[in-house]
């Protein structure tokens, strides 16, 4: 995996030193909050409902065991013994104290990590397919490009004060696991007629108060031209983005208001200006980065032990059926470690659990870990013969929940339990849904289903692209939950449709139960997923289950 160069190291260290002084000056009163706020946000430090929150970037979701152990150390030394993995492949610490933040940032720098550009109107952490470099369906590992983008965008002088924040996601697979169509820029690797890999460039996707699916501005972009092209997009956005209105400032609004043809022409025009003066320096850099992402030396060993164990142990089999994905090497598997034990907080891991995962990665996983936007942790390279041992260790750490992709594998933003922007809670709703369907012992029967919950309209919980989306709002001083159906965050991305009036806090779980009851009744066969059934039948049967059965029309 990529290691910091001397430049990266010096840059991160000098930023820590700078911010340490800024914190000092804030505490001694030489800086006011108005002066300090933009500085702390540039370094990932928010002030939330009950405490400060530090958001640490995990570039393209890739992390090594050494780094994971350091996160555990930070959680224990300066926080409450746990960390929260987010939908942008970051980790958040919910209880740091202001005077401790410099020490935390310094501890992060010790393991080549930082919190730079995890907030503010700049290019944020570049996210990637969490199965990158391992997936069987992948054209090429997209992470070298993500790393190139990270280096290019970090402290880029032209793009530190964009009209609004800017999120880029990259995938190397036709099966989109990185929600590229809901990002400011989505990059999907494709091959051209000659079989060369390049990128389909998608611009103007986004969730939030105005959800939009991104539009393709370039069907095929050669890899070597990626950076100048992305710079051209940013440049057009930086100049024309709506700085007059915060709610219209994202690039999705610019794309929508300008129109696809015109925005494409503007980007191509700017690109034509940039490309000739770009020079070839990035090719050499990209080649170096690519070398750092060379696949591990896969082990050749028999897998019959795995087959025998799979057939003999039903608990292991259930876990293997839900939590494993196909690896590019036939003797390997991709392991998704669920951070969604029934009733637990989605995305939270204790320091002990972090160390367990680090140990497993080191012993069985070629020292690689990934964080998924679905708030789980991935061991991307595990030889099948090691899976029983991995499962046994996970089980002891409370990490062997066999629910990946099922109803209890819920994305939930921190909501009003932590977030200062939230309008309602989301974590307890996720906890209650997971607990309820575990009690009913229905989740395997229900099959693949993505529930995504946001505690406000900003949609950090991706509710718009949940098969079932839940949005928590404040309706006249009471928590109220709106349901959307049919959202999809993959290559067939679509924004979900609102069902109607929302439900009160104590009505939302029964409402979800009625929805699922309706699905089980109307699905054509057990293999037809919730999303397929919804696409076949539309809202009607679900609306009926939500509103007619219980006389809920007056709920909101």
């Amino acid at each position: 995996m990529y290691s910091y160069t001397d430049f990266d190291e010096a840059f991160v260290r000098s930023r820590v030193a700078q911010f340490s002084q800024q914190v000092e000056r804030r505490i001694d009163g030489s800086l006011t909050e108005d002066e300090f706020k933009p500085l702390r946000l540039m370094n990932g430090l928010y002030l939330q409902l009950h405490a400060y929150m530090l958001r640490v970037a995990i570039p393209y979701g890739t992390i090594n065991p050494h780094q994971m152990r350091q996160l555990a150390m930070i959680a224990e030394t300066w926080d409450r013994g746990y960390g929260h993995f987010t939908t942008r492949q970051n980790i958040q610490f919910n209880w740091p104290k202001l005077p401790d933040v410099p020490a935390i940032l310094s501890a992060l720098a010790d393991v080549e990590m930082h919190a730079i550009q995890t907030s503010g109107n700049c290019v944020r952490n570049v996210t990637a397919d969490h199965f990158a470099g391992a997936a069987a369906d992948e054209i090429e590992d997209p992470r070298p490009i993500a790393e190139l983008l990270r280096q290019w965008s970090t402290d880029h002088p032209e793009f530190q004060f964009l009209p609004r924040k800017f999120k880029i996601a990259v995938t190397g697979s036709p099966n989109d696991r990185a929600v590229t169509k809901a990002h400011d820029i989505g990059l999907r690797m494709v091959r051209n007629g000659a079989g060369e890999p390049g990128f389909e460039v998608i611009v103007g996707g986004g969730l939030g108060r105005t959800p939009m699916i991104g539009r393709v501005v370039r069907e095929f972009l050669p890899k070597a031209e990626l950076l100048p092209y992305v710079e051209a997009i940013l440049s057009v956005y930086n100049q024309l983005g709506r700085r007059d209105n915060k709610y219209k400032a994202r690039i999705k609004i610019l794309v929508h208001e300008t129109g696809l043809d015109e925005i494409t022409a503007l980007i191509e025009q700017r690109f034509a200006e940039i490309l000739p003066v770009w020079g070839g320096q990035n090719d050499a850099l990209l080649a170096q980065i690519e070398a750092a992402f060379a696949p591990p030396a896969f082990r050749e060993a028999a897998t019959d032990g795995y087959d025998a164990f799979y057939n003999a142990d039903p608990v292991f089999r259930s876990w293997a059926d839900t939590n494993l994905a196909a690896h590019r090497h036939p003797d390997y598997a991709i392991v998704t470690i669920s951070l969604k034990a029934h009733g637990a907080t989605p995305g939270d891991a204790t320091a002990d659990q972090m160390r367990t995962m680090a140990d497993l990665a080191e012993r069985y996983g070629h020292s690689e870990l990934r964080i998924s936007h679905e708030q789980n942790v991935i061991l991307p390279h595990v030889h099948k013969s090691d899976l029983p041992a991995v499962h046994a260790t996970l089980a002891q750490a409370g990490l062997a929940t066999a629910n990946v992709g099922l109803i209890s594998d819920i994305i939930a933003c921190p909501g009003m339990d932590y977030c200062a922007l939230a309008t309602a809670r989301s974590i307890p709703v996720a906890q209650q849904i997971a607990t309820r369907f575990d009690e009913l012992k229905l989740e395997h029967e229900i099959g693949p289903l993505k529930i995504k919950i946001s505690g406000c309209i900003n949609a950090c919980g991706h509710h718009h692209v949940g098969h079932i989306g839940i949005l928590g709002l404040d309706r006249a001083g009471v928590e109220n939950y709106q349901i959307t159906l049919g959202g999809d965050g993959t290559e067939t991305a679509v924004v979900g449709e609102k069902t109607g009036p929302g439900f009160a806090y104590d009505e939302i779980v029964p409402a979800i139960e009625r929805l699922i009851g309706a699905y089980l009744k109307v699905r054509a066969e057990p293999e037809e997923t919730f999303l397929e059934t919804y696409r076949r039948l539309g809202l009607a049967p679900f609306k009926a289950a939500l509103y007619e059965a219980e006389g809920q029309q007056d709920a909101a």
Partner: protein
Amino acid sequence: MSRPYIPKVVTANALLEGDVVYLTADDRWSRQHHEAELIEDEAHAQMRLLHAAAQKSVIVGAYLADAKRGPDGPEPTHFREEFRTRGPSNYFHGKQEEAAQ
């Protein structure tokens, strides 16, 4: 006739810990809502908010939050302010934990 003024408390976060604090009638910052000064006059509320906002090396983000009179002192009226008096619902952290100690 003008609508009656909804009583307020001045609240903020402590600069160093980020913990929720409330301005008391005797100019302290208390960690407990029921110790806050319940302000029932709009002009007085603005004065108290200005007084609070000036304490920039002690607190961050002072604002007026709706409150009501209760048997032990002011109580929050909105669920957000109620959560701020206690801490998150998924872990026993924050003020609820301190109160139990």
